[in-house]
C-alpha cells in the first residue's frame, strides 16, 4: 500500500513525472487528452453516418478503400452503419462525457479547490487513468477485429448482444471486446469515484466548511456518488452478458429463439432483465455526464455576472435531488417493454418530478444573471449556452416522460434530438466552458478570446441546426438506429431535412478545427496568464499558473469566505477571495 499523500517534491524522472504520474494535475490532463482523442474519433464516425443518411444511394469510392468490408461497393452496408453508431455512442458517452468533466477537470481542480495537495489516494488515481486508457484501447480494437464493431448500440440490448455471430457482424469478437472494455471502464470509474468522495470528505483545508465548497465541488462529489452506485450494476450486467455469450448460461436469452433459421440453444432467460440492469445504470450515467457541467455553469455565471450565485443552498439540494431521483426513473426507457401500466405511471411521475429540481437550477441560473454586470467572456458564453441547451433538451424530456407520448416517440429521432441536446451537446458545452475557463490556469497562457467567441457562436448555431430538425423527423415517425433513410415511402419527403442536417453537421465539425487551432496557438503564443485573470474567488486562482507540484507550496491555505462573494457592498474590490483574511479590527 502507498502513502495517502504524494511526496513533497515532483519526481525527477520524466516517466514518473509526466507519464506514470500520481500528480492529480497530470492525471487530469491525461484524461483530457484521452477525451480529446475520443471525441475526434467520435465525430468522424458520426460524419460517416451522416453521409449515408443524407445520400443513401451515393457511392464514395474513396471511403470504400478505407473500409473495404463496410463500404464494399462504395455505399455503406446497413450493418456497418450500425457498428459505426455503436462505436460513436459508446465512445461519446463513456470516453468523452464521462472522462472529461469528471476525470479531467475533476481531477485537476477538485483537490485545488478544496485546498488539498493531491487526491486521497494518488496511486489509485493513476491506476484509474491507466485502466481507463486500457479500456479505450480495447474498445478501439473492436473496430479492427474480424467482423468489426458490434451492431447492438451503446445499450447493448440482449438478446442481440448475447447470442454471438449468428445475429450479425460484429457480434462475435467485437461484442466481447465491447463488454470487456466496459467492464474495465466500470472498474476504473469505481476507483476514481471512491477517491473523489474520500478526498472531498477528508482533505478539505482548514476553514473549507461544507457551506464554503464551490458548487463545482458539490457537483463532482455527487457525480462520484452516482458513479460509485451505478457502475457496479453495469459491471454486474456485463458479467452476466459475457457469461451468456461464452459460458453458455441463459440469463438474458429467451427459450426457443430462432435467429437466421437457427435455433439458439439457450433457454428461459429474459432480455428485459438486461434492460433493467442497463438502465438502472444508464439513467444515473446521463447525470454523471451532466452534473459537472451544471456545477461549472453555476460557478461561471456567478463569476462573470459578478454576483453571488442565487440560492447556493437550493443549488446543492437540487443537485442531491437530481442524483437521488436519477436512481428511481430508469423505467422511463422501457415504457414500451410491456410493463404494467401501473409501473409506467410510477416511473412517469418520478421522471417528471426530476423537472422540479431541474427547474430550480434553471431559474437560479437566470436569477444569478439578472441585474449582474455581465462579462461576456468565452467561458461565460459557453455557460449560457449550456443553460440554453439544458432547457431545450429538458423540455422534450417532459414529453418523453409521459408513457402515452413515449409509446409513439420511443425509438424515433425525437429521442435522438432529446438526448443529444441535453446530454451530448450540453455536456460538451460544459467541457468547452471548462477548457476556456481553466486553460490559463493549466497552461499559464490565455486562449484567444476572439477565436473563442467565433467558435462559440458558430457551434451554438450549428448544434441547434443539427438537432432541432430531428424533432420534426421524430414526429413524422422516422425510426432511430436505422440506415435506410428512404426505406419507407413516408420518409422520402423528409430527405431534404436529412441533407440539411448533414450539411449542418459537417459545418459544425469543421468549426471545431478553430477550437483545436486556438488550443495549439494559445499554448505557443497566447498571452501569459496572471494568477487570477478572471478575478474569481476560488482557491485555484490563488496559486501560480500553472500550479506547482504540491499546489500550495509549504503552506496549507486557510479559508475564510464562501466561494461566491462578488460585489460585496463596502468591499474595495468587487470580489473577495476565499482565502482573504478578514481585516483585523
Amino acid at each position, binding site marked *: 500500500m502507498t502513502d495517502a*499523500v504524494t511526496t513533497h517534491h515532483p519526481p525527477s524522472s520524466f516517466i514518473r513525472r509526466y507519464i506514470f504520474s500520481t500528480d492529480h494535475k497530470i492525471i487530469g490532463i491525461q484524461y483530457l487528452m484521452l477525451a480529446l482523442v475520443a471525441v475526434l474519433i467520435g465525430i468522424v464516425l458520426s460524419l460517416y453516418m451522416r453521409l449515408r443518411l443524407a445520400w443513401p444511394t451515393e457511392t464514395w469510392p474513396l471511403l470504400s478503400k478505407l473500409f473495404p468490408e463496410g463500404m464494399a461497393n462504395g455505399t455503406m452496408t446497413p450493418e456497418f452503419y450500425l457498428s459505426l453508431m455503436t462505436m460513436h455512442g459508446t465512445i461519446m458517452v463513456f470516453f468523452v462525457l464521462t472522462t472529461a468533466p469528471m476525470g479531467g477537470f475533476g481531477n485537476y481542480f477538485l483537490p485545488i479547490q478544496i485546498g488539498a495537495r493531491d487526491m486521497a489516494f494518488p496511486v489509485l488515481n493513476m491506476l484509474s487513468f491507466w485502466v481507463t486508457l486500457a479500456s479505450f484501447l480495447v474498445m478501439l480494437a473492436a473496430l479492427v477485429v474480424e467482423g468489426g464493431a458490434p451492431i447492438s448500440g451503446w445499450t447493448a440490448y440482449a438478446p442481440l448482444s448475447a447470442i454471438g455471430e449468428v445475429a450479425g457482424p460484429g457480434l462475435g469478437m467485437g461484442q466481447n471486446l465491447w463488454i470487456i472494455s466496459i467492464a474495465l471502464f466500470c472498474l476504473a470509474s469505481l476507483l476514481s469515484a*471512491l477517491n473523489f468522495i*474520500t478526498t472531498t470528505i477528508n482533505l478539505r483545508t482548514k476553514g473549507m466548511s461544507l457551506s464554503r465548497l464551490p458548487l463545482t465541488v458539490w457537483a463532482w462529489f455527487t457525480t462520484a456518488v452516482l458513479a460509485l452506485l451505478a457502475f457496479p450494476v453495469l459491471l454486474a450486467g456485463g458479467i452476466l452478458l459475457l457469461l451468456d455469450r461464452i459460458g453458455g448460461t441463459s*440469463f438474458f436469452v429467451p427459450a426457443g429463439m430462432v435467429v437466421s433459421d437457427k435455433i439458439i440453444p439457450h433457454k428461459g432467460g*429474459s432480455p428485459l432483465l438486461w434492460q433493467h440492469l442497463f438502465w438502472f445504470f444508464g439513467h444515473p450515467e446521463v447525470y454523471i455526464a451532466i452534473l459537472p457541467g451544471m456545477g461549472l455553469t453555476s460557478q461561471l455565471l456567478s463569476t462573470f455576472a459578478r454576483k453571488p450565485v442565487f440560492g447556493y443552498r437550493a443549488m446543492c439540494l437540487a443537485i442531491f435531488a437530481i442524483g437521488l431521483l436519477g436512481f428511481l426513473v430508469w423505467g422511463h426507457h422501457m415504457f414500451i417493454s410491456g410493463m404494467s401500466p401501473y409501473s409506467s405511471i410510477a416511473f412517469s411521475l418520478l421522471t417528471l418530478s426530476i423537472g422540479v429540481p431541474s427547474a430550480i437550477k434553471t431559474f437560479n441560473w437566470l436569477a444569478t444573471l439578472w441585474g449582474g454586470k455581465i462579462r461576456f467572456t468565452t467561458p461565460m458564453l459557453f455557460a449560457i449556452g449550456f443553460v440554453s441547451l439544458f432547457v431545450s433538451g429538458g423540455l422534450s424530456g417532459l414529453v418523453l416522460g409521459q408513457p402515452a407520448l413515449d409509446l409513439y416517440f420511443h425509438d424515433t429521432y425525437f429521442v435522438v434530438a432529446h438526448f443529444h441536446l441535453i446530454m451530448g451537446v450540453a455536456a460538451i458545452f460544459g467541457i468547452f466552458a471548462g477548457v476556456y475557463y481553466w486553460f490559463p490556469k493549466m497552461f499559464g497562457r490565455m486562449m484567444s478570446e476572439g477565436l473563442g467567441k467565433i467558435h462559440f457562436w458558430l457551434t451554438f448555431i450549428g448544434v441547434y441546426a443539427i438537432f432541432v430538425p430531428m424533432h420534426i423527423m421524430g414526429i413524422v415517425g422516422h425510426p432511430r438506429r436505422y440506415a435506410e433513410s428512404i426505406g419507407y415511402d413516408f420518409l422520402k419527403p423528409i430527405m431534404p431535412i436529412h441533407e440539411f442536417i448533414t450539411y449542418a453537421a459537417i459545418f459544425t465539425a469543421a468549426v471545431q478545427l478553430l477550437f483545436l487551432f486556438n488550443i495549439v496557438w494559445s499554448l505557443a503564443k497566447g498571452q501569459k496568464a496572471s494568477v487570477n485573470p478572471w478575478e474569481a474567488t476560488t482557491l485555484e486562482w490563488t496559486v501560480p499558473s500553472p500550479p506547482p507540484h504540491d499546489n500550495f507550496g509549504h503552506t496549507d491555505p486557510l479559508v475564510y469566505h*464562501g466561494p461566491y462573494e462578488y460585489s460585496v457592498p463596502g468591499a474595495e474590490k468587487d470580489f473577495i477571495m476565499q482565502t482573504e483574511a478578514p481585516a483585523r479590527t
Partner: protein
Amino acid sequence: MIPSVTTTTRVRTPALGQRPGAGRPDDGRPPDRGEPPPPSPRTYRLGMIFALAGISMLFLGFTSAYVVRQGLGGDWQPFDWPPVLWVNTVVLLTSSATLWRAGVCFHHTHWRAFARWTTVTSLLGLGFLAGQLWVWHQLRMRGIYLNTNPNSSFFYLLTGTHGVHLAGGIVALLWLSILAWRLVRPTEATSATIARCRIAVDVTSLYWHFLDGLWIFLVLLLFLWR
C-alpha cells in the same frame, strides 16, 4: 430585486478555529509545517467504506438478477449442496473471529500474538478458498456445470465472484502477516511498521468482516431462495 444584497448580509467571516468545519483534523500544529501531513487512518477507512459500498452494489445487481431469473421459473432446478460448503462457512466465520483477536492483540501491542493470529486468519482464508474449489469440483463430478441450469449458473457466479474478492483479502492478509512478523523483532523501522499496520489492520478487518457478512447473505440467498 438584486439578490446579492440578501446573500451578502449572510457573509460570515469567523475567526479560524472557531468553525474548523474542514475534514482534515486539526492537529494543533501550525499550518506551515513544511511536510505533507501524515497519512490519516481515517482517510483509508473512508476509502474502504466506499469501496465496500461499490462492492455491495455489484452484488445487489446480481441479487436482483437472481430474484428476477428465479421468478421466470421453468428451467430453474434446485440441487443439493456438497456438505463441505458448511465446513467452509464455519471456517470463514472462524477467520473473522481470529482476525478480530489479531486486532485486539495489535492494540495491546502483543506483537507475537498479533502475528500469529494474522497468519492463522490468512491460512483460514486460504482454507476457505480451497474448500470452495472443492465444492465446485464435487458439483462438476455430479454433472452440475455453470450452464446446467440458472440455479447452478448463479451458484457458480456468486461463489466465484465472492471468491475473487476474498482472494484479494487474502493477499492483504498475507502482506499484513509479513509486516506483523517483522514487529516481533524490533528494529529502527518498527515505529513506521506499526503505523502501517494500524491502517492495514483497520482496513483489512473492515474488508474481511464485510466479505464474511456477504458470504452469509449469499448462503441465505442461494439456500432459502432455491
